[in-house]
């Protein structure tokens, strides 16, 4: 799988273990974006010229292929392009807020800030936030969700906003049960799929909104998708503009009847035109990608030295966070960097969770379909070496 990614030929010195932040790029994506910029740059939608028509074709083909990949009927009514997960989640939440006057939102405590902050900004006081706790294994405690949601009167509008896999815990939450709970109480459901979409086959049907970024799926920066349930096409767009309408007069407007309603303005077409080959590649390699992810999770679960680090939990997918027994996460990150091993550390844009499960910062190792077992082992060996070095210099608090 590694040969599909030019980065690893160009940067053989690097051990890249930060794929949860962004993945490396499939060769077709780099080639297609370059071709677009140098040979095919034109704008989509009603161009009237052959170059623009070609871009239109790529745009529609990309949605058809995403539909095939995720088993979505009528993708033109379900797939909204945007700049990434953050915009997708913000748009979804703004749409909900425009449709409902207020209510309660149940948010997973393991969520990324981008799923929390839109609800807690000033002016959003009509929405009360209730966090869903974790169970003993670290997954969202859906008994806790169910008991909390039952406390709310039927007449109160409800939203369930969770991630499929936390960017801190690497555990796959039970989306089937979340879907059932949402249906039982007629709650709107929002799924942040950022961490799962590049690793596992995702069943997206039955959710109101599912968001992800393509840069985490071996694709381009600055492009995301928001899947919407078609029922949301009945509402006005939160960011109206060119492309979202079929007719405008001085006193009326007719919105488009498909997902372009929520795609005002010129989209990131160089990125969109790179999607067809990427998605075909994802369809072809889906099973291998999933098997590889599971096998690396097993390697890291089996090999982490519990005497040196406290893992937040065991991992299911994509990443593992660790808390050092000795030393600061900064020390480990800087010293690994000196060995050209790229990891991430800190609060990981998930402070409510980080503050609950750690002393305020964690080390995160994360992988993609191109990561080798040897790279994971190299990082673990070096973490052990750094632990030993720091142990010799146990710092005294004055």
């Amino acid at each position, binding site marked *: 799988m590694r040969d599909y990614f030019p980065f690893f030929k160009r940067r053989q010195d690097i051990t890249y273990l930060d794929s949860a932040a962004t993945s490396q790029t499939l060769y077709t994506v780099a080639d297609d974006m370059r071709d677009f910029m140098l040979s095919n740059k034109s704008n989509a939608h009603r161009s009237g010229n052959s170059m623009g028509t070609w871009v239109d074709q790529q745009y529609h083909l990309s949605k058809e292929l995403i539909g095939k990949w995720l088993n979505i009927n009528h993708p033109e009514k379900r797939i909204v392009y945007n700049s990434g997960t953050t915009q997708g989640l913000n748009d979804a939440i703004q749409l909900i807020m425009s449709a409902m006057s207020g209510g309660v939102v149940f948010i997973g405590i393991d969520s990324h800030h981008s799923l929390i902050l839109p609800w807690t900004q000033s002016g959003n006081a009509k929405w009360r936030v209730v966090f869903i706790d974790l169970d003993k294994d670290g997954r969202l405690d859906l008994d806790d969700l169910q008991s909390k949601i039952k406390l709310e009167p039927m007449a109160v509008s409800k939203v369930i906003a969770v991630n499929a896999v936390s960017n801190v815990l690497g555990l796959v939450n039970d989306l089937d049960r979340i879907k059932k709970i949402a249906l039982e109480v007629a709650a709107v459901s929002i799924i942040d799929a950022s961490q799962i979409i590049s690793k596992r086959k995702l069943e997206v049907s039955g959710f109101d909104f599912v968001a992800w970024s393509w840069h985490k799926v071996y694709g381009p920066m600055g492009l995301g998708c928001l899947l919407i349930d078609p029922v949301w096409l009945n509402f006005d767009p939160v960011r109206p503009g060119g492309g979202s309408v079929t007719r405008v007069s001085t006193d009326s407007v007719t919105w488009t009847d498909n997902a372009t309603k929520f795609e005002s303005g010129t989209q990131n077409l160089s990125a969109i035109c790179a999607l067809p080959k990427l998605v075909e590649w994802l369809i072809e390699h889906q099973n291998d990608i999933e098997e590889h992810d599971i096998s690396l999770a097993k390697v890291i679960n089996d090999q982490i030295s519990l005497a040196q680090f406290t893992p937040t939990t065991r991992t299911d997918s994509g990443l593992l966070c660790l808390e050092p027994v000795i*030393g*600061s*996460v*900064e*020390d480990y*990150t*800087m*010293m690994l*960097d*000196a*060995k050209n091993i790229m990891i991430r*550390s*800190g609060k990981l844009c998930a402070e409510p969770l980080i503050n609950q499960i750690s002393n305020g*910062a964690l080390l995160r190792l994360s992988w993609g379909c191109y990561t080798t077992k040897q790279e994971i082992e190299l990082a673990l060996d070096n973490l052990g070496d750094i632990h030993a*070095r*720091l142990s010799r*210099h*146990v*710092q*005294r*608090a*004055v």
Partner: protein
Amino acid sequence: MLDFQDMFSELFELDDAMDKYEWIIDYGTGTVGLEKQYHTDQTLVKGCTSPLWLAKEESGRIAAWGESSIVNGIASMICDWYNQASQRQQQDFSLNTLTDIGLAPLLSMGRQNGVANLIAKIKTL
């Protein structure tokens, strides 16, 4: 009144980055850090990923203490050098000084900002 590089010449003779880190950590460990009574919100250096405190103690000594062993070591080096430096040397000192002698590149950009804030704060004490 030694230049920064002369004062820590032993460090600059090392080639391997890991050895440099270990030397810096060792320096911090061997230095008496800022007394705990001075660890307050007012003495906290902004912009650091992990907490770092800097203050002038009653004795007149400027000292620091950081949770990260590497940042603690570098902060200790800066304080120790600053305490013996001439007024002119103190005025001229900046993050560029550490960049020029190859110390700053050992820190990521985020940590360099923290050290820049440390240097700015030390000049106000």
